[in-house]
């Protein structure tokens, strides 16, 4: 009751080890919420049969950016939110009945080739740029590319356990990244990870201590690159780099991802082979207790969802705490603004040493100038997870940050 312990949503260390094969997966979805600002130009309609890697829609503003099917199946539904923005495109899987195209390696020689390949084959959305955390436009310049291969504290799969098994694909992916930037490709590993050195100019490695804040991309960018206002960077996860390597090797779209799932009941996280945008019900099939919430991403994000977000590699099932009605009447805040009460837990909730309380206050009132002054331009939603979790205000700071970033972006 009092002093909610973290136990139900403990921010676990990254998990490694044996990967369980999936139980049968029934559906995957591409979610509009993953691509803020996207206007989808549909290339399929409900009922169409699609194969893995087939273009489902493109970005109306940048028609070169393709969004593709993670696996083969049938388009079950396409729903829109307000303003004709895509809500979700759901593909019912057919268990790969469709015949696979013959696999043939792809050769990429020039920077133009590399961009065209990733754009047309659906891997471009793996990149997000800083500032603002958006999919970069096809012709955008990156002063550096940051590859996140850290053992996060959010229950994500541990690259230390998994990367050695796919080291060749990873290296091939990295080499392709070097064609996309004139700057460095910075791979950020946890201390102690052993991987053969890649002898390609432009690829640099950095090792970071296992700590919640030093495992954040924002920390890496601040340490190795500096400000992003005039020198934008792109970020990408290690599994997406491996996927690029697989695309080069096989010529086929690699929709598979290893997802770490944490169940509040069994406690121990396990790794499962799954798909991009996989249905969370499929991941947690079996022992489903009533009143359990499925979460895309770390348990503390509280991000209830039906499908895995494009950028998440972990999922959790939590059981919401039960509270009596009397207790709710005495303490609950039905939508009312609650205060930010400073406490030591908040001071360590933000990366890059940003002073938490002034920053959260500025976000709460949408004070873009102060947010900028405190270093908010380089942050994205994931950086706000711990602050939202720990603050007494109950504010969703990720959403507040997005609002402020949108304003900064509009004002330039």
């Amino acid at each position, binding site marked *: 009751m009092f002093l909610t*312990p973290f136990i139900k949503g403990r921010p676990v260390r990254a998990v490694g080890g044996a990967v369980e094969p999936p139980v049968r997966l029934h559906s995957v979805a591409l979610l509009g919420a993953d691509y803020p600002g996207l206007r989808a130009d549909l290339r399929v309609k409900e009922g169409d049969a699609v194969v893995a890697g087939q273009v489902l829609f493109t970005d109306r503003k940048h028609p070169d950016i393709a969004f593709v099917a993670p696996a083969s199946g049938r388009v079950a539904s396409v729903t829109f939110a307000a303003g004709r923005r895509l809500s979700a495109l759901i593909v019912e899987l057919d268990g790969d009945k469709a015949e696979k195209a013959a696999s043939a390696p792809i050769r990429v020689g020039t920077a133009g080739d590399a961009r065209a390949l990733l754009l047309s084959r659906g891997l471009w959305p793996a990149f997000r740029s800083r500032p603002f955390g958006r999919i970069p436009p096809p012709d955008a310049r990156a002063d550096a590319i940051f590859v996140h291969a850290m053992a996060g504290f959010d229950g994500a799969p541990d690259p230390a356990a998994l990367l050695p098994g796919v080291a060749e694909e990873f290296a091939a992916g990295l080499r392709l990244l070097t064609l996309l930037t004139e700057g460095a490709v910075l791979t950020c590993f946890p201390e102690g990870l052993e991987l053969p050195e890649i002898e390609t100019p432009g690829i640099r490695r950095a090792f970071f201590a296992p700590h919640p804040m030093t495992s954040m991309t924002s920390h890496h960018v601040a340490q190795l690159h500096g*400000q992003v206002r005039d020198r934008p960077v792109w970020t990408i996860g290690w599994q997406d780099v491996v996927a690029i390597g697989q695309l080069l090797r096989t010529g086929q779209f690699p929709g598979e991802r290893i997802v770490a799932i944490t169940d509040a009941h069994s406690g121990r996280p396990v790794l499962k082979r799954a798909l991009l945008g996989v249905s969370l019900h499929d991941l947690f099939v079996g022992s489903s207790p009533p009143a359990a919430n499925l979460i895309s991403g770390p348990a503390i994000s509280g991000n209830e969802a039906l499908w895995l977000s494009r950028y998440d590699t972990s999922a959790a099932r939590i059981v919401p705490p039960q509270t009596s009605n009397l207790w709710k009447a005495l*303490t609950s805040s039905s939508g009312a603004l*609650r*205060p930010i009460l400073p406490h030591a837990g908040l*001071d360590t909730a933000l990366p890059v040493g940003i002073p938490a309380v002034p920053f959260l206050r500025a976000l709460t009132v949408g004070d873009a100038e102060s947010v900028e*002054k405190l270093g908010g331009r380089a942050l994205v939603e994931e950086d706000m997870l711990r602050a939202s979790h720990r603050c007494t205000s109950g504010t969703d700071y990720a959403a507040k940050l997005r609002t402020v970033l949108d304003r900064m972006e509009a004002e330039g």
Partner: protein
Amino acid sequence: MIAIRQPWQVTFAVTLALLPPVLTMLDRNGNAALRVLVTALVVSLIWELIFTRARRQPPSWHGIATALIVSVMAPTDLPLWHLALALSFGIVIGEQVFGGRGFGFLNAAAVSLAFLIFAFPGTVLPEPGPDLGYATLPGLALLLALGLVFWRVLVALAIGLIAGFAVVNGTAPEPETFLAALFAATFLVADPVASAATQAGRWLYGIVAGLLAAFFSATGLASAVVFAALLAGLVAPLIDDIVIRARTGRRSARG
């Protein structure tokens, strides 16, 4: 690891921390102290409920903690309407007009006690003894463990006190002085809402509060710490602003 997620959890922890000092005070002063305590609780809860109702906010119940702090530090023989007026001023002007605890930047108990001394000349806060200091220790440990008191503020306060005494008296303060000041230091100066919010700012804030407390100490230690807490709380936002400016300057110089 324990997580603070709700304002009332903070109130609960602070109230728990206040119990040993309150019991010490009741044990020492008996019925006179009980009378002060009950009046303080009734007045602060009335104001808290009026304001949270009007704003449709959930009550944080922090009025309880404010009432307990004031009861421990106020003289037990004061007229109850003095107490009621002082608490009303502290809670309404020091806290609720900003939107409640956590939206303002002052400690309501410090404002109440300062009002008591200013508005009713002749009110003298009783000098705390070492027993109050000892009774504060378990609560201090709890608040430190929960992160609701910043150790930086307390260490800086001690540094400020030593430096201030050296300037004013030419000597270091007695160990008993620290013990006697511990209650007010914990619940007034180190209040996370009144303290500076940046790490460097907390050092500065604590030192400012310690220096001020030493300079005012001729009028009695208890009121000295009250005024030191109040004035340091007033400059805390300025301290944070300076720290943030310095940080921004450093970043742009580097980037």
